[in-house]
């Protein structure tokens, strides 16, 4: 049996640094929501887990070969983020240890978000975003739930078109990701975009489907020139979904890209003609994630 807890990045020297935790998933609920639990094949594969953890860290901090999106490598952010990895193959395959479920309607790995806080508390870990790494033999596609903020607590207020929201300092349920040990390219970064966003204070949704309104997505035709005003800064719309184009039956439209020749990170990065790693976040997503991270990094 092995128990390995590794500090991959120390982060800020304070009691509650912004923390990303990468966990080897002890057990799978298969199928998801069935109550049936099986051991996750990642148990017994410490080297594969550590390789996955290194990949996730690299994707987050802009270290993949050819990666252009380096938002988290900003000197105001990178030194203050704590990254932990956790591997414990001494746990029984019980529901309380099943961090991931296998979706019966897809090949998605789905984080069982409600068990993460109690699971991590056994290791005295409080995290803001958690990746649960699986080596499922049938399900390999990653997914993420946004953070549930602690809206009874403090935060930094900000204004968007639909009113005042807050970059909350703390959460009641961290952003959670179910990801396969073989994940590559921008997948870990894309899922972080969802996971670090908030169900009550601005969510970041997929831009490769005709999504509902969110911080990074709006509905309507014709597409207006202005996308949104965020903290008094106007952001333009991406009128052409540069790099891909909007299907004719869509109502969604997005914010202006930083690099209009490539899809956004939250869009279909596989369609980038210069490789997924060349993709960048759109402008409002980048600003929102940066501000949210800074609020959490500087929380009292």
């Amino acid at each position, binding site marked *: 049996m092995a128990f390995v807890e590794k500090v991959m990045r120390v982060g800020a020297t304070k009691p509650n640094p912004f923390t990303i935790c990468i966990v080897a998933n002890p057990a799978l609920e298969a199928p998801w929501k069935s109550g049936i639990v099986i051991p996750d094949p990642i148990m017994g594969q410490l080297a594969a887990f550590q390789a996955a953890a290194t990949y996730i860290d690299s994707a987050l901090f802009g270290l993949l070969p050819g990666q252009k999106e380096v938002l988290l490598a900003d000197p105001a952010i990178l030194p203050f983020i704590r990254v932990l990895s956790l591997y414990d193959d001494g746990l029984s395959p019980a529901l309380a240890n099943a961090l991931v479920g296998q979706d019966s309607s897809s090949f998605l790995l789905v984080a069982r978000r409600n068990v993460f806080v109690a699971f991590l508390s056994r290791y005295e870990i409080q995290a803001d975003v958690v990746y649960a790494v699986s080596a499922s033999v049938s399900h390999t596609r*990653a997914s993420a739930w946004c953070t549930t903020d602690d809206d009874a607590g403090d935060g930094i207020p900000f204004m968007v078109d639909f009113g005042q929201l807050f970059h909350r300092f703390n959460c009641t349920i961290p952003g959670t990701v179910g990801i396969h040990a073989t994940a590559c390219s921008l997948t870990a970064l894309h899922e972080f975009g969802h996971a670090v966003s908030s169900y*009550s204070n601005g969510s970041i949704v997929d831009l490769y489907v005709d999504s509902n309104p969110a911080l990074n997505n709006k509905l309507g035709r014709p597409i207006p020139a202005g996308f949104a005003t965020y903290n008094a800064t106007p952001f333009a719309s991406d009128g052409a979904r540069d790099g891909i184009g909007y299907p004719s039956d869509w109502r969604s439209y997005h914010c202006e890209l930083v690099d209009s020749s490539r899809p956004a990170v939250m869009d279909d990065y596989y369609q980038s003609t210069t490789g997924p790693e060349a993709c960048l976040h759109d402008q409002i997503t980048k600003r929102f994630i940066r501000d949210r991270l800074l609020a959490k990094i500087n929380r009292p």
Partner: protein
Amino acid sequence: MQPLKPEQRRAILENSPQAQPADIDEYERLLSLRFAEDPDQEPAAAPDHTAQERALVGSQEEREARLKQLHAKLFGASENKKAKTAAAHG
């Protein structure tokens, strides 16, 4: 949610002749929508969704039922093929 790779999209259409590109689009949209809403809250808690927009996408139960239908349509043939291959290799 991780996007489908182009080769995965092609494989679905090749392996499931009854599947149409529009089926994949609907399937992907409904899957993605699952994660866009807080699963532990009523939809009204979200600040950026209107009642009209929620009505357009149906209830969570309706969407999950439709997802099961689409999954069977898109992957039924390939799953049967995999099962047959596995059985053949016993």
